[in-house]
């Protein structure tokens, strides 16, 4: 299977992992390991930026995994930019998963503030991976602004409802020149497979793995779901048909 390339960097795995909601850092570490993931996102609001190597980050081997700090909890562009800058100053690199989520319940992304923050961060040299609603126009605007990917949601964060935005994500995939990572709402490996079959470049999963009875097993299952979906996409899924096809075609007599 060909490699995922984001901002010129190659990754063997197309499964990105979130680190929230785990019952312990040890459980998280084991899940990351069995997911085969190479990109791991961490909420900056949970990291002690004065001593970032303590606590959660001591469970993520940065020589093995690309650390993707995220700005979750930011209510506007200003707060997101502030978090990203603090992250870089703390030595956590210049990659950032941009999340501007002004509403604390459904955690849906703010398109206006996300675009504004993306423009600022790209100018400041960050590699920006923005979390967005499945809005094809916004995806193009972010790409134009220089983001490294777009990360449309399948359904609201933590909802486990799967690919509810399927039609819009299909358009985003069709039109995008940067990798499309389906982020949020994927509740089962079959949802991840469906996203990959559709042509997504990668998926990001957190809640479904972190809150499973056996997170490491679920991480392995998602790994397989992603690989199966990718393989199917590359093999060329047979198109779905609305009706059964008559075995004796009406126009079969034409030579």
């Amino acid at each position, binding site marked *: 299977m060909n490699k995922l390339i984001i901002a010129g960097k190659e990754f063997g795995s197309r499964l990105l992992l979130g680190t*929230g*909601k*785990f*019952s*312990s*850092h040890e459980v998280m570490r084991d899940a990351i390991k069995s997911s085969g993931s190479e990109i791991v996102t961490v909420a*900056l*609001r*949970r*990291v*002690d*930026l004065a001593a970032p190597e303590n606590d959660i980050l001591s469970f993520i081997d940065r020589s093995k995994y690309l650390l993707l700090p995220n700005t979750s*909890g930011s*209510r506007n562009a200003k*707060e997101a930019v*502030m*978090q990203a800058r*603090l992250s870089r100053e703390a030595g956590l690199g210049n990659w950032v998963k941009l999340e501007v989520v*002004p*509403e*604390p*319940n*459904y955690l849906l992304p703010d398109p206006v503030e996300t675009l504004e923050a993306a423009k600022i961060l790209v100018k400041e040299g960050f590699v920006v991976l923005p979390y967005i609603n499945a809005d094809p126009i916004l995806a193009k605007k972010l790409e134009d602004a220089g983001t490294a990917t777009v990360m449309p949601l399948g*359904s*609201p964060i*933590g*909802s*486990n*409802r799967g690919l509810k935005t399927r039609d819009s994500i299909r358009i985003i995939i069709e039109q995008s020149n940067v990798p499309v990572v389906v982020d949020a709402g994927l509740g089962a490996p079959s949802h991840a497979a469906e996203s990959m079959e559709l042509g997504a470049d990668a998926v990001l999963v957190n*809640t479904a793995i*972190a*809150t499973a009875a056996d997170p490491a097993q679920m991480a392995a299952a998602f790994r397989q779901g992603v690989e199966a979906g990718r393989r199917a996409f590359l093999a060329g899924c047979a198109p779905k048909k609305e009706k059964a096809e008559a075995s004796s075609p009406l126009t079969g007599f034409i030579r």
Partner: protein
Amino acid sequence: MNEHLSIEEVSRLIFEEMDGRRLETLARAAHDLTVQRFGKTIKLYAPVYLSNSCINACKYCGFNRAAKISRVTLSADEAIKEADFLIAQGHRHILLVAGEDPNSVPLSYLENVARELRGRVAKLSIETQPFDEISYRRLFEAGVDGVTLYQETYDPETYGLMHPSGPKSNFASRLEAVENAGKAGMRFLGIGALLGLHDWRSEAVSLVRHARNLKKKFWQAAVAVSFPRIRDCASDFHMPSPISDRELVQMIVVLRLALPDADLVLSTREPAELRNRLIPIGITQMSAGSVTSPGGYTDKKQDEGPPATRASRHREARRAGEQFHIEDSRSPAKVAETISQTGYQPVWKDWI
């Protein structure tokens, strides 16, 4: 996304006489919903009591202006010292608490303390006298992220009886003050009912109504709900409407089902054993290692646990000038350890 319970359905669940099996079924649903929305995590915080000086006469409160306790207001430096004590124990979310006395705890004082503290903690909340929108805005600018302001009881008649005089005696203006904090852009709004004052069932329904109303008005704020049960304090108060452990569980379960995304907060008023049991049911935030008298962390060694008898608890509370007596006197590290053993991750830091 989650089945949204109508307020009628909430009310029906709250007023339902549940047998053990029914309660267990709903507790499992509340558990699943909490894990889905919050993960297996418990956020920790601790209060710093700035002052026990108060011009109100709340009948249940140890800071009641008639209470014969020594009145203390910390200097800004002393407040920082108290906070540093908690920070050294791992805390990154501090709740500043004070009685209502504009002379002892004016707005400018809270602003000073907030400015000093904000760089050292990740989240700073206040539980003080209410303010107007402009003052809350000044506090937000100074670094305060959240405002906790309990209505205590949503029954106006009981409210009148419990708050016979002082600025707090005005039911409507207290309700309004939470909205002032919302308008000022506070990130977190904490509401609560002091259980024991009035029928818990009607208080629970009111809490859900209030929380939902705030969420609609201040869509960018996270609403947290507390339901402290009255504990012994220096005012020798006997509660009119006690609530049992079993009823408390029913209330927590229904609050969770009604408010899937609200933080449900449990203080050290509840004993350790019960707190441990309530973690998987829907609680998402807990105080740990709390002392409820000004200067109590650095002044003296923490006491060794709750005194045995009711009378001795009264004496103890009065001597220390506490607002209420702590039932769970475990250290923050011990609380965190127990949370881990329960299969949850203790979260100290949850903002920047």
